[in-house]
């Protein structure tokens, strides 16, 4: 595995050109031991990098300012989220009310046209109401 050590490093640190990369991947496909070694080193580097990034963020001399900016960013995001959900609720309510009114009008129209109980001087609600009264009396 020693003979591949520099290739592995170049591969994992993205220091190969497209052609070299493809060649190395072909080599890995034919050599399970090499592929396993690459995977193992990839895992190690991933863990090490994660800790180094975290350490750098925590040791940053401007950490207080960063925390402040992050706090502001999160606050802004939460406010935006809240206003969006309020917007959704309001839109939902308006749509629901419009649908309810439309459905009511359709029912009244159907009921009126099907009974022939037409009194042009009355309002729509009265017409519907009269239909139910008539129906009730018939029963």
């Amino acid at each position, binding site marked *: 595995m020693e003979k591949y*050590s*520099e290739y592995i*490093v170049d591969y994992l*640190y*993205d*220091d190969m050109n497209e052609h070299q990369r493809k060649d190395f991947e072909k080599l890995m496909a034919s050599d399970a031991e090499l592929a396993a070694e690459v995977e*193992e*080193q990839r895992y*190690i*580097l*991933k*863990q*090490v*990098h*994660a*800790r*180094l*990034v*975290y350490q*750098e*963020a*925590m040791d*940053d001399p*401007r*950490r207080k*300012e*960063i*925390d402040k*900016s*992050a*706090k502001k*960013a*999160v606050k*802004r*995001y939460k406010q*935006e*989220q809240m206003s969006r959900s309020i917007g959704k609720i309001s839109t939902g309510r308006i749509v629901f009310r419009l649908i309810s009114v439309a459905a009511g009008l359709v029912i009244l129209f159907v009921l009126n046209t099907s009974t022939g109980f037409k009194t042009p001087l009355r309002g729509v609600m009265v017409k519907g109401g009269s239909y139910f009264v008539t129906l009730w009396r018939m029963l």
Partner: protein
Amino acid sequence: MDSKYSNKETIIQAIRDKVNGAFEYIHEMLFETVRYMITSNKGSEQDAEDLYQEAIICLTVNLDDQNYKIKENFSGYFIGICRKMWIDKLRDRSRESFFDDTRSPDVLSDRMDRNLQRDKQQDLFWTILARLKRECQKIIKYRLDKKPYSEIAKSLGLTAATVRTKKYECNKKLNKLIKEDPRYSELRN
């Protein structure tokens, strides 16, 4: 993975333009750190996934405002957002639990710092990193961040060729130290 995103202005513009490559780069560079931070602070793998996604949305919402500026280092800023969000989540959870007396975000923040210090003494990777020279740590990190050799060389006062050579040496030493540690085989099993 495209190295152009190691430049702060480029990645910010790419996020504003919703370029997929930029989000892949952030995931590649920072997800593992977020995962580490959450799982070593009372969180699960799923918590880490969820929080990372939410932090990305938070980032894009803020950057949708063209006048919004990130004055700090990008990764530090993103980790800061994740940290703040996680502290808020922990606080919400402690509110739900009668026996947990953690209420203040400052207490939670201090606790996270203490966890990190404790982790540095126990965790395999931290202890091995502590045995590597600071220069080695920087070369490994900067190269994994996809920083160009010329930039690394400038910041460390070396030549680009020396940085390249040191990268092999540092990586070799890192692997040797980790693989020799009995905790590593336990971890892999």
